[in-house]
């Protein structure tokens, strides 16, 4: 259903004029990130069959790959690449709170006797 929506016409009331070249560049970036995400997924699964010496090594590599993939999604798909200051500020405060949350959870675990088997 198209609701009579016109095709191949540029929006007429856009707040900013459309730069076709810029949009095409953006599309190329999206495709590049997609390729990185697919490669990252394959790598993550392959890592499961490698079996590192210590469990913490597996955890570190898995989370590193996930962080790179997540950063690609946030930077390119979610346009954080463009550097909108107010959004960065919102995310900075959120990030500090999340890191604190993780830090406290992990630190509290180490304070329990006989815990943290997983990282040994």
């Amino acid at each position: 259903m198209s609701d009579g929506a016109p095709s191949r016409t540029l929006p007429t009331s856009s707040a900013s004029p459309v730069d076709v070249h810029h949009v095409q560049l953006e599309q190329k970036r999206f495709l590049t990130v997609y390729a990185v995400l697919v490669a990252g997924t394959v790598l993550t699964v392959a890592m499961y069959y490698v079996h590192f010496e210590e469990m913490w090594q597996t955890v570190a590599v898995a989370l590193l790959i996930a962080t790179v993939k997540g950063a690609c999604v946030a930077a390119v798909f979610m346009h954080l690449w463009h550097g909108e200051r107010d959004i960065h500020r919102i995310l900075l405060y959120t990030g500090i709170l999340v890191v604190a949350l993780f830090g406290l959870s992990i630190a509290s675990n180490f304070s329990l006797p006989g815990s943290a088997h997983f990282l040994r």
Partner: protein
Amino acid sequence: MNQSHATIPYTTEIREDTGLYNGKVGMWLFLASEVMLFGALFSAYVFLRIGAREDEWPHGLLNIPIGAFNTLVLITSSLTVAMSWTALKLGDFQRYRRFQFVTLGCATAFLGIKSWEYFDKFNHYEVWLKKPLTAKEYPQLAGQSLDANAPIASITGHLEGTGPLETLASLKEAGATSVTIHPDEFHYRLSARQQAERRKEERLRPTESGHAGGENHAGVTVDVSGISRLSTFVPRHGTFFASYFTLTGLHALHVFGGLLAFAFILWPGARMWRDDPARYTNRVEVTGLFWHFVDLVWIFLFPILYLL
């Protein structure tokens, strides 16, 4: 300026103080609260995982190829959302529509696969025995323990002739006196490394134990009176599945919410494209932000739940 602009300001124009249109700021604030929500659940999971004994935490119960495929489905949907937005930027509504059909297809496929995974867990059992058995007595239990002489207090596998979500009470109510369990290739208490080593050994001397991978076809029959506990792999089974269903269930709800939002924008909401294409494009962009966030959460969920 039309009526909608008079009532809702900054739907397309940029505010001087934020440098953004209002919808985008609103969505980012919402996503910040979502980060805290998932952050709390993730940190709780990390807390539980770190504190768990290695032989108590399930390994190999989730289907990695299926999980990886679902990851690719979600990543593909993120690409089609981004591409549909650029199509609108270029004024090509038909191209936008094609991309969004793929997005909706991916979202539906993701939820379908997830439901199938859930259903599989509703039919997968662990049976705790009052009197342990050994793999020496029952060779079909070879994958349930590292040592053939070690007592096996619980068996994982599928029950013959029962439906999903059975409990010990429901079996007794149905008048069952015994159950036949077809054991899994490996009990979850064996780590990924131990399972891989056992597989390698099995390949070197096949057919000895009568199974060549996957579920064991030779079952073990036990009396219902000899069972101390029986559970499918649902939240009440233990910490891992309580965390698994909480995290993936909440995530699936987000996928469903995104699916509804995109479907609304694509069909009844599409009238706005005719009246105010810039606002419509922005609406797709902010919904896309939500969708990419859902993708991002899954990027972290997949390795921590399926691989660790």
